[in-house]
């Protein structure tokens, strides 16, 4: 390993976002189901949320002056990495409870890993963020792990 990752960078592991609490509405479920080309009536009518509805529900809403010139919101959970070009990422999502209109859900994101691997054309940095989504009874509804690769 070439040692791109400093001790200081590693101290960011464990950083948490502020909890984000959102309400699920039938209208938002319907819009998402239509936009994704879903064909099942229960989702198109908004009776229940399709599996990836938490993606729009918890997408960061930032003000216009906080967007980069290419229209991206900056993830404030992330430290400055020595590599900056993002490559493909992956998602691992576990579903524990159904989501319906009227549900209040709270997400909290934690930076859980930063590591380095040798790629074909140099070192790559990987990081992982776990987002836990809980209902108002503190029960885990969804756990999502995002893995991102920087080169």
């Amino acid at each position, binding site marked *: 390993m070439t040692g791109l990752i400093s001790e200081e960078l590693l101290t960011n592991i464990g950083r948490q976002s502020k909890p984000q609490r959102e309400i699920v509405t039938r209208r938002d479920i319907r819009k998402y189901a239509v936009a994704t080309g879903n064909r099942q009536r229960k989702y198109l009518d908004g009776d229940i949320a399709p599996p*990836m509805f938490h993606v*729009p529900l918890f997408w960061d809403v930032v003000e216009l002056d906080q967007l980069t010139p290419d229209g*991206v919101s900056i993830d404030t959970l992330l430290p400055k990495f020595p590599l900056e070009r993002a490559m493909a990422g992956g998602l691992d*999502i576990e579903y524990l409870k159904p989501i319906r209109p009227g549900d209040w859900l709270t997400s909290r994101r934690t930076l859980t890993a930063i590591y380095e691997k040798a790629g074909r054309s140099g070192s790559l940095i990987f990081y992982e963020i776990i987002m836990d989504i809980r209902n108002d009874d503190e029960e885990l509804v969804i756990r999502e792990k995002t893995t991102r690769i920087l080169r």
Partner: protein
Amino acid sequence: MTPEPAVGVALPERQHTPDNVQLMLYNASLWNGHRIHFDLPYATEVEGYPGLVLAGPMLGDWLYQTVDEWLGDAGMITSVSYSNRGATYVGETLTATASITAYDAASGVLEIDVGIRNEAGDIVAPGTIGAKLFAAAD
């Protein structure tokens, strides 16, 4: 539920040909303002893409839809794992595929390999879906 679950069984494929209206509505439903998804001169001239780039998680949604439509009310999805391996663009026809790789009849637990295939035949988003069939008494 057709076909019946068994290891090696392929579920019905589905083709997606998203246009820029669908892509706009998708990103609007997220509040995603990334220019590569709606600003064609920016996507092509500044970023060097051949067209408007489809949003990665939209492909993730199509991965489970193939399984979810097959399950209907007979079961539920318990996990979704996938990665985005390559960019895809408005105008492409993408095919969502799924085949059963593990099935335990006693518990109803299923593991299903899924993928999004582009017109060149490359799998641009491989993944695995976990699902569970409800017991008849449920």
